[in-house]
């Protein structure tokens, strides 16, 4: 087999492998940081917006709209401020909602949130734009103590149809919760994934949730061991923590309803999409600073390629001079050095994307566990391609000065015997 320019470049890189690996790592960290930042930024915003689905109005008694959205739609914490079901019914009759879904949060299964709701949750609420709920197995709940499991929750807890589970009062981060071991829930359905926070939740009927709370009340009143059924649920037990609502396509009516509801101090009213947009406006300044830092790191990695290659030029003068004597043109040695720089950039770009994907998986896992959003930190293929091309272009620019040094190598002087 003949020797090629590629072999010479590879041999040159291998002979200085430590310096080459360090330079590749520097480029990789820079491009990885850039990739992670861009992908997390868009993925975060997408995940938040996606999770709000087709809800136009979120009504609760939370301290503010952001807390309301995070708790009622992303399961961050158990919502505070219960709403009596009768108040919900009154509200529904007072405004021209296209649909409403009452939600009740506060219970959990091994750390996963359990939502008490009605069939309208699966019929009217869409977890993401143009995405309807579908089951991978089973049916939606129809009777008390039936439970439907989100795709992620089913996977994490290894739940299957027919499994019987018991719930805990309180969420994973609520201290002082207790087990409702006396009430067995049967898994009747497993949902298909929606890539939203809802995937890690379990869903049961409001009545089932209310029975748990009625039981708590009755145990406090009548002592331990009391039996509680749906008939023991009083009006005071019929509470919810949030209301998903939509006006439909009537934008003018939406503004009117939002205005009217916001005028009532009893309610915390949020338009989830604009609340999420507002959240990202707040963080966008920090985001831009981080992006600027990532760009600065990219440039510094370009400089490190330049320095790494430039420092080797003194050692390589003799090799370049020999290649020139053997018949290599100035342009050919220029291209050899530029190719080396490009390979470093290209490898750095690819390794950087691999680092970003790994880090993104870790970060999304943390976000899912702590904030409740399902973030998919990935870019479209052309996004990754752009980052690799940008890294390649930067490394080529950084390689120009060392390549010019190679081009201008004085052959005769470089071949003089040392000493």
């Amino acid at each position, binding site marked *: 087999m*003949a020797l090629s320019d590629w072999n010479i470049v590879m041999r040159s890189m291998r002979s200085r492998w430590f310096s080459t690996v360090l330079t590749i790592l520097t480029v990789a960290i820079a491009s990885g940081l850039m990739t992670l930042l861009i992908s997390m930024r868009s993925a975060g915003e997408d995940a938040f917006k996606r999770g709000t689905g087709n809800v136009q109005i979120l009504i609760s008694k939370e301290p503010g709209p952001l807390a309301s959205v995070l708790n009622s739609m992303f399961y961050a914490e158990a919502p505070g401020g219960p709403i009596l079901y009768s108040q919900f019914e009154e509200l529904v009759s007072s405004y021209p909602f296209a649909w409403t879904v009452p939600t009740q949060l506060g219970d959990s299964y091994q750390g996963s949130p359990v939502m008490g709701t009605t069939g309208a949750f699966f019929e009217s609420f869409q977890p993401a734009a143009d995405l309807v709920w579908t089951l991978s197995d089973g049916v939606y709940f129809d009777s008390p103590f039936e439970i439907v499991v989100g795709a992620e929750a089913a996977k994490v807890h290894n739940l299957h149809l027919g499994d019987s589970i018991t719930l805990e009062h309180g969420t994973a981060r609520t201290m002082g919760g207790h087990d409702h071991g006396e009430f067995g829930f049967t898994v009747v359905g497993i949902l298909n994934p929606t890539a939203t926070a809802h995937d890690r939740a379990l869903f049961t009927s409001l009545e089932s949730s209310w029975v748990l709370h009625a039981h708590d009340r009755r145990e406090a009143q009548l002592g331990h061991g009391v039996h509680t059924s749906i008939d023991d649920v009083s009006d005071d037990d019929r509470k919810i923590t949030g209301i998903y609502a939509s006006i439909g396509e009537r934008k003018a009516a939406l503004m009117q309803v939002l205005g009217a509801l916001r005028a009532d101090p009893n309610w915390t009213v949020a338009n989830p999409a604009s609340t999420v947009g507002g959240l990202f406006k707040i963080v966008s300044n920090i985001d831009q600073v981080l992006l600027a830092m990532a760009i600065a790191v990219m440039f510094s990695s370009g400089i490190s390629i330049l320095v790494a290659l430039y420092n080797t030029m003194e050692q390589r003068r*003799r090799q370049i001079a020999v290649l020139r004597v*053997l*018949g290599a043109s100035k342009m050919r040695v220029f291209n050899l050095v530029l190719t080396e720089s490009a390979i470093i950039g290209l490898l750095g770009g690819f390794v950087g994307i691999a680092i970003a994907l790994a880090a993104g998986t870790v970060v999304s896992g943390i976000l899912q566990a702590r904030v409740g959003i399902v973030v998919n930190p990935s870019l479209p293929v052309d996004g990754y391609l752009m980052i690799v091309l940008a890294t390649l272009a930067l490394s080529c620019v950084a390689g120009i000065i060392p390549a010019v040094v190679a081009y201008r190598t004085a052959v*005769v002087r470089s071949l003089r015997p040392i000493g």
Partner: protein
Amino acid sequence: MPKHKPTWLWAATFGVEAWPDEIHFDPVRLRSRHAMKTANHHPAIEIDSLSFQYPGTACPVIEIDRLAIRADEQVVLTGQSGSGKSTLLHLIAGLMDPTAGSIQINGICINGLRGSKRDRFRGHHVGMVFQTFQLLHGFSVIENILAALMFSDLPKGQHRERALGLLEMLGINTPNARIEELSVGQQQRVAVARALACSPTVVLADEPTAALDPEFANTAMDLLQEACRSVGSALVCVTHDRSLVERFDRHERLEDLVSLGSVS
């Protein structure tokens, strides 16, 4: 054919297998391409009214009215240190531009060629052997030969075979060894093999035995001269070692050819 049999000193210097009992040249195989190159019967080197002067200096370092070297000739150039011996080789190789005059190799004026054309021409027609060999460290023995063949017009599929043939001819049977692992004598033979890789019109040897002990200089010259004859390349050898002079067909003293100047 080597004049000296291996001795313990030879073995220590050149490696145990350093010197083959016989060097088996295959003139037909090695000369075939060269025969095509020299079919036009031009002298291997033809220098006419050559003058070279370093910028900013008062007088030329080299002035040669005419010098012609035949394709089968082996010429030794001697001269005092700084008389311009190495400079003349660099001019012939096209690594430097003369101030005036022309240098033709195989009928082509090398100093009339520009840029990559000259580099390509050098790769095809000129082989060089240096005092310190100038092998590519970090590369294997065969890769050093293949590096020269990269710039030849030999089809790529034949590079390896050609390189192995040259190494076998020169008694190197460790083609995959690193250059750093070779003895000085073995390195010299690799340098000779590399110089001959493209069947050049001319091999320019700049003090090829200066790094060797005097005892082995003759043996090394045997190798170089015999290899050049086998390949059909003219040999121009620059040396200040007058003991080597008598082994050449022709001896040219720089002082007789060039006006004296100072080479830095």
